[in-house]
């Protein structure tokens, strides 16, 4: 085995990376997820090119128009183009979900590493903080925070961080505990590496994989939190388009026209499904226990 390894080292590595992608693409749900996520991402990035109208331009005469060539999803109670609002709403949804998830990861993993690698008392103190934060019900927390700082995107992001970061921190901590006594860490310490060095170059790469996958599966939850808070009027302020607020407007005028509700709901379903499929496919692809069976 040792001698055969010497003949194909680079090729083998390459093949492993390629096979991970191929495994992802060999799964129908993975492909669907990837396509949906890419589509939403592209729409968000190129929103001004995709949307044919200004999402906040009022046209009271054109209220509640059904879908047509001019207005792909019709118009809402103020005559605004729903398609344009949905397209611009994707920017809010993605920036909040990706940004908040990234921040939660950053904060959670850092504190988790510190808790797992640091002294016992610090670990206990941080665990107490994680558990206290996790025990807040999300909706109550959202209401309380908004009362405190007013409805805004920052409030949404803060709610997400407070509810998501502690679970990432707990995961990072547990994984760190299982790696910190590995012999290669001891070996590295006896070769003179300091704590920072060991955490950054040896522990982090060993623990980050599973956490990233869990985070990717949390993204749809964050999309839903943002939509939900905007629906309740706790998130994005009007007239900025958000899928949640489109849904809320449509909800108030549902007797007049069903299109605003459909326009607000559809992208939420597409996006959450896309991220969920992709996350699950990623998990299966990188789970060594499942890898053998396919």
């Amino acid at each position, binding site marked *: *085995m*040792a001698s055969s*390894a*010497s003949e194909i*080292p*680079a090729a*083998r*590595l390459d093949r492993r990376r390629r096979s991970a992608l191929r495994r992802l693409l060999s799964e129908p749900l993975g492909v669907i997820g990837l396509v949906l996520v890419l589509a939403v991402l592209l729409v968000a990035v190129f929103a001004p090119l995709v949307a044919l109208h200004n999402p906040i331009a009022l046209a009271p005469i054109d209220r509640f128009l059904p879908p047509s060539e001019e207005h792909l999803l019709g118009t809402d109670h103020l005559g605004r183009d729903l398609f344009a609002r949905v397209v611009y709403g994707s920017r809010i949804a993605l920036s909040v979900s990706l940004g908040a998830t990234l921040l939660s990861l950053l904060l959670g993993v850092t504190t988790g590493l510190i808790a797992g690698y640091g002294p016992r008392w610090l670990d206990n103190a941080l665990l107490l903080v994680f558990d206290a934060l996790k025990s807040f019900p999300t909706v109550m927390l959202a209401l309380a925070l908004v009362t405190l700082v007013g409805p805004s995107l920052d409030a949404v992001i803060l709610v997400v961080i407070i509810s998501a970061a502690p679970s990432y921190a707990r995961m990072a901590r547990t994984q760190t505990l299982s790696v910190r006594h*590995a*012999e*290669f860490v*001891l*070996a*590295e*310490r*006896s*070769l*003179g*590496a*300091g704590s920072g*060095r060991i955490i950054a*170059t*040896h522990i982090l*790469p*060993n623990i980050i994989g599973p956490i990233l996958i869990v985070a990717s599966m949390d993204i749809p939850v964050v999309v839903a939190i943002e939509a939900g808070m905007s629906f309740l009027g706790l998130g994005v302020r009007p007239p900025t388009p958000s899928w949640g607020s489109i849904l809320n407007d449509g909800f108030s005028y549902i007797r007049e026209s069903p299109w605003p509700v459909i326009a607000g709901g559809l992208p939420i379903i597409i996006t959450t499904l896309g991220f969920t499929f992709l996350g699950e496919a990623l998990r299966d692809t990188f789970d060594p226990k499942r890898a053998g069976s396919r």
Partner: protein
Amino acid sequence: MATPALAIEHLDLAYRTDEGMLHALRDVSLEVAPGEIVGIVGESGCGKSSLIQAILRLMPANAVIERGRIALAGQDLLALDADSMRRLRGDRISVVFQDPMTALNPVLSIGRQMMDIQYRRDASQPAKRARAVEMLRRVRLSDPERRLEQYPHEFSGGMRQRIVIAMALMAEPELLIADEPTTALDATLELATIELLKTLQREIGCAILFVSHHLGVIAELCDRVSVMYAGEVVETGDIRSVFHQPRHPYTERLLACDPARMAERSRRLPTIPGELPDLVNLPAGCVFAERCPAAFAPCRGLPPEFYRLAGNRAARCYLSRGEALS
């Protein structure tokens, strides 16, 4: 004699436990001259690992050094602050651990790890890479440039152990501590690894403290040996005299138990009857008295001293008291 590369004098190390202080090392004295290979041999639980941790100052939190001195080339290690000690590790002292399968980070390539531990050198990336390649070549790994791209799981145990040795010797340390580096390898690889260590030791000129419970390996590699039992060095001397004329009954028994040295086949492997003494409540006299076939009255009275004998030897046994040099 020149200043020894490593000098340990009357080291006492204890662990705080719920039952009380556990005296893991007692009055351990040891010297390794520059360029010398000294073996430490003893059964499991004799304090070998505690000793290594104490030298590196990587002890568990409940360990206390109660007495003694550890000096690296005359510099008192116990007096150093934590940061200076950290800078010394991997630079002037290096370690090779027992299990090559777990001593490398599984998610980083060999090259990344080998270049990474050179962070103290003020060298460019290509220079560090060249150095890593050179070290792999020195441990006789074929095709080192390509090896750097590979991950630990792509190597066999013997190759990994050579990589670990290459990493430990990267900074050309004054002292290499080898903690049973061949225990996890099979017999042929064991021999090859010993030969490699010998060659590298000649090239680099470092001193080696070689810890093992394998008498054959110690005999093959070391100039001198210290035999440890229950936290004490019971006998020390150059390899030939200790193996041919052991001065401590424990050494004698240990040699008798080595299957490779048994004169004839027997149905049962010989063992030393009895158990290790309780290190929390130490026996009054000699720690080996309970298991010693030669024990007599004084052995159960006071612990024997470490008697210096002719021929640069020493033994912690009343049988040697008569010949002790003052």
